[in-house]
C-alpha cells in the first residue's frame, strides 16, 4: 500500500490514485511518417523495467490532476513525484 505525494495535495493513500503506465512516451507528431513497426512500438511496446520506472499517476479521488512518479518496481519505493512537463529526475537506485 503505497503513500504517494500528489504534487498539489500532498501525501495521500494509494487508494486515491490510479496508475496509468509508463511516462514520457510522446505521441509522434506525424504518425504517417512512421513505419508500422514504429507505430506499433509507440502504441503497444513498453520498457517494463525491473527497478526504476517512470510512470503516470492520476489523483483520481482528489484534484484529478495527472503527474509523474519515479518508483522502484521491486521495492515499490516511490523516489519522487513531479508535475507533468517536468523532465524526469535523475535517480540513483
Amino acid at each position, binding site marked *: *500500500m*503505497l*503513500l504517494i505525494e500528489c504534487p498539489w495535495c500532498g501525501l495521500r*493513500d494509494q487508494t486515491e490514485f490510479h496508475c*496509468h503506465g509508463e*511516462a514520457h512516451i*510522446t*505521441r509522434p507528431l*506525424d*504518425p*504517417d511518417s*512512421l513505419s*508500422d513497426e514504429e*507505430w*506499433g512500438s*509507440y*502504441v503497444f511496446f513498453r520498457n517494463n523495467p525491473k527497478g526504476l520506472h517512470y510512470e*503516470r499517476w*492520476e489523483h483520481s479521488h482528489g484534484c*484529478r*490532476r*495527472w503527474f509523474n512518479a519515479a518508483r522502484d518496481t521491486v*521495492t*515499490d*519505493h516511490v523516489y519522487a513525484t513531479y508535475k*507533468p*512537463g517536468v523532465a524526469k529526475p535523475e535517480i540513483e537506485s
Partner: protein
Amino acid sequence: MSQDYRRDKGGQLNRSKTLRFWYDNKGYEGYQGDTLASALLANGVHLVGRSFKYHRPRGIYSAGSEEPNALVQLESGAHTEPNRRATEVELYEGLSASSQNCWPSVGFDIGAINSKISRLLPAGFYYKTFMWPGALWTTYEKFIRKAAGLGKSPTEIDPDSYDKIHAHCDVLIVGAGPAGLQAALHAGRSGARVMLIDEKPMFGGSLLADSALIDGAPADQWVTKVINELKQMREVTRLTRTTVTGYYDYNFVVANERVNEHLGPNRKAGGPKERLWKIRARQVVLATGAIERPLVFADSDRPGIMLAHALRTYVNHYGVLPGNRIVLITNNDSAYHSALDAHAAGAMVEVIDVRRNPSGSLLDTAREQGIHIHENSTISAVDYRRGKLRGIEVMQLSDDGKAVRGVPSDLRCDLVAVSGGWTPTVHLFSQGKGKLKFLDDEHCYVPGERAVNNKGFEAGSCKATWSLPECLKEGAIAGASAASAAGFESTATEDASGTEESVYGPARALWILPTDHPVGRGPKKHFHELHNDSTVADIALAAREGFVSIEHLKRYTTTGMGTDQGKTSNLNALTVMSEIRDVPIPEVGTTTFRPPFTPLSFGSIVGHDRRELFVQKRKTAIHPWHDRNNAVYEDVGDWKRPYYFPQHGESMHDAVQRECLAARASAGIVDASTLGKIDIQGPDARRLLNMVYTNAWSKLAPGRCRYGLMLNEHGMVFDDGVTTCLAENHFHMTTTTGGAARVMGWLEEWLQTEWPQWQVYCTSVTEQWAVASITGPNAGKLLSTLCDQPLDDESFPFMSMQSFNVAGIPARVFRISFTGDLTFEINVPARYGLALWEALMKAGRQYDICPYGTEAMHILRAEKGFIIVGQDTDGTVTPLDLGMDWIVSKTKGDFLGRRSFTRSDTTRSDRKQLVGLLTEDPSFVLPEGVHVVEKLKDKPPMTMLGHVTSSYMSPNVGRSIAMALLKDGFNRKGSTLEVSLMDGSSHKVTVTDPVFLKSGSE
C-alpha cells in the same frame, strides 16, 4: 462437573462469575477470564480434536494464537465458525463448541484408520497413486476431499455486523508485553500519537504468566501502573483483543479487533463482532515477543503434551494446574520457570534435561525444591491409552544426542511439558519486507534490516532478547526513538529498572530427539508439525526425492501450511533440513511470511461494504416516478435504468412490443439522464474534438449538434455520442452511460499529459442534467404544449439545440434522434428532472405518451441500424468495419487511432463487418451471440463467419431483425447463410443492410 484441575487461588480470573459451557454436548463450568482451553483443562479435558491427515487424537498444545492442535467448531447454526483455536476463544455463558475432523466422535473416530495405514501415506503419496485407471480419479478424489478439510463452513447467513476504520498515528506499537508497554509509555510521554495493540484480552504479554518482580513488586502491579499512566494520555489509543494481521508497504498495518465476540452470540451490547483497523503509522515498533519452540520426540503429538510456557500460563494466569504428575522436557533453562511454578502450585514435577551436566541458578533452585532432573536424557516413548496420557519412557542420550542408550525407564505422569527454547515472532517484520538474520548462538532468526519504507524499531524477545530487564530497557529506547523519529522530543528513562535478572545458561542445540528405532523407521512418529501432520520422516523423504529447496519442502510435505502457518514448527523443519543437507540454517532459507498473522475473517475484511453498501446504486432524478410506475430495472454500470414498464402483469416481451409500437405510433418517452455529459470550453475545444473524434469539428456552428465516434490508438471504436456547439468555444459532449468516466479520463489524459498547452477545459456535468427524451410523430406537438418556442424544421432543425423553458423549467433541448423519428432530448438541471417528466407525462396524455425502457430503446435504434458501442462493437471494430466511412474524415489530418487504419490487418477487406440479418422465418428471433456459418456441418468444428450482436422482434418492421459482425460482410449482402443454434439445429438468414426501417423522419 467440578473443575478438578482448578487451583484454589491464583490467576486473573473472576472466580465469582461461574460460566457454564458445552463441549461436544457435555456441560462444564469455568470462570470469567478463562479461555475455552483453560476451562477444558480445568475440567481435565485434554483431547479436543483429530489431526488433519492421520486423525490422530490431539490436545491443547499452547496457550495462545500459535495453537496448532486445539481447533474446534465454535457454536452452531448461523453463528458457527470452524477452526477456532480453543486457546483464544474467551469463555462466555452458554458457549458451545465441538471437536472437528472426527466421526462419530473425537474419542472413537473412523478416520483414524488413516493412522493405521499411515505407512502408505507419506508426504506426497497422492502424487504417486490414484492414477489407474485414469477414469477413476474423480471417484478417488471425492474420498480424498471428504477426508481433508477440518471444520465445517457455516451454511447460514452471518447475522453479525462488522466495522472498519482508518487510523493514523505517529508510533504504532505491536505487542504489549514488557517491551511494548515500555515503548508505549515512552512514546506516549512525548505527546506523540500512539497506538498500542495486543491480541490478548489484556495487556501484559508474557508478564501475565510471569512470577517476576519489577521494581520490587509483582509484574502485574507494574502492568497496571503503566496502563493507568497510558490511560491519562489523550493521544494514546489502546486496543486489546486486536491482532495485527498484516504489515504492508509504507507502514500500512491492518489489525483486527474482536469487539464483542467474547460476549458470545447473544450479545446484549449489539455493535459489531469485529472491527478492521487500517492504520498508517509513521513509525512501527514491533514488540511481538517470542513463541516457544517444541522439542520433537517419539509421539510427542499426544494429548497431554504441551509447551512449557503454556503450562506456566495455565498455572499462573488461568489458575489451572493441568496435570498432577508433570514431566518437563527441555534443552534450556527458561523452562525451569514452568517447572518451579507448577511445583509451587502443587504438582509433582520431574525434569528431563537433554543437556549434559546442565547447571545454573534456576536448576539449583529446582533441585532445592526437590525436583528431580534426568540429565542427558530424553523421552523415548509416550504411553497414551484410552484417551489419556499415562506415562512416558525415559532413556539416556548418546554423546551426539542422535541416539538413545541403555534401557528405558517408565515414568508415570499425566502431563508433559516441552521446551526447545524460543523463536522470536518475526512474522510482521518479515511481512513488512524486512530482512531476517540468523543468530547462530540463539539458533533463531531475528529482524535485520528494515524495508526502506517501513520505518521503526523492534524491542524485546522478538529480537531474541530474553532477559526481562533488557526487554524493558529496549522497549523504552524503541518507544523514545520512534517518537523522536516521528518528530517528538523524547528520551528513554530508567524507570522499571530495579528488576531482578534471571541468568540463563546455554541451551543444547538439539530439537529432534531419538528413540529406540531410527527416526521415521518404526512405529513411533516424530511430528515436527502438528497441524498438517508433517513428520521428520516426511522431511527426510522430501529431501531424498530432491525437494530440498525449503519452498519445495513446504509444498511437498505441507509443513507450515495449516491454519497456524507453522508458528511452532517452522524452525524445527528448517533445522531438520539443515541437518539432512548438512548446511547451516541460513543456507536452507525460510519460507515467505505472508499476511495474515492469524486467520482473518472475511466479514472483517468486508466491513461495511456489504449488502446495500457493496456497490452504490445510482439512480436518476426521475427514479421515484419509475418506482411508482412499476419499472423493471436493468443494471448498467452502477446505474439502475428502467428496462421496461410492464402493465397489468404483462410479460417482458409484451411490454416491450407495446412500448416500441407506441413510440413510433405517437409518442414515447425515455429517461436518458444516465448518458455521460462533459462540458468543454476554450479556444482549443475544436482542436480537441478534432483529435478525439474521427470526423471534422472545425465548422460546427453554435447551436448545432454532431454525432462522433471515438477511437483508441489501436484504431478501434470505444465510445460514441453527440456533441453540441453551445457557443464558439463551448461544447456539450455526450457519451455512453457506461463510458462516461472512461471518456472523461481519456480527454483529461491527453490534455494533461500530451497537450497541456492547449487552451481547453473539460468538466463532467453528467449528474447536473436530467434528460427526458420524447420521440415519435407527435413529439413536437407534445413539446409545443409546454413551451412557447417554434419547433418547425426551419426554426429548430434536426441536429440542433436550443435553450428555452419547458413547462416553465429552463431547459436545453436537443433535436437529435436515437430512434430515427422526431425526437427532442430535453435537458434540465437535475432538480427539475422529475417535474419535467411529470409535466411531459401529463401533457402527453392526449398523445397516449408511452414511457419506455432500455430494451425498447435498443429495438427502436436497431430498427434504424444505429449501433450500440459495446454491443455491436467489441473493441476490435473500426468505423470502416461498421460501414461508417462517412464519419471518418479524410481531410482534417491526424486524429487518435487514425494511423492504425493502414496497418496490414486493418486494411484487410475481409474483416468482420456490420450487416443486417433477416431470418427465413420472420417470427423467429435469433438468440444474441449465435454464430453465422457458410453451411451447417453435421458436427463441429465449423468455420464461423461472425456472430449476431443484436437481435429483436421488431413490431414496427413487423418481423424479427438482427445485426451481425460478419467476415467479409459487406460483400455478402444478399447472400443466404446459416446460423447455428445451441441445440444443433440451424436457421437460414439473408445478409442485408442493417437499416430495417426505411420510414422515420430523422
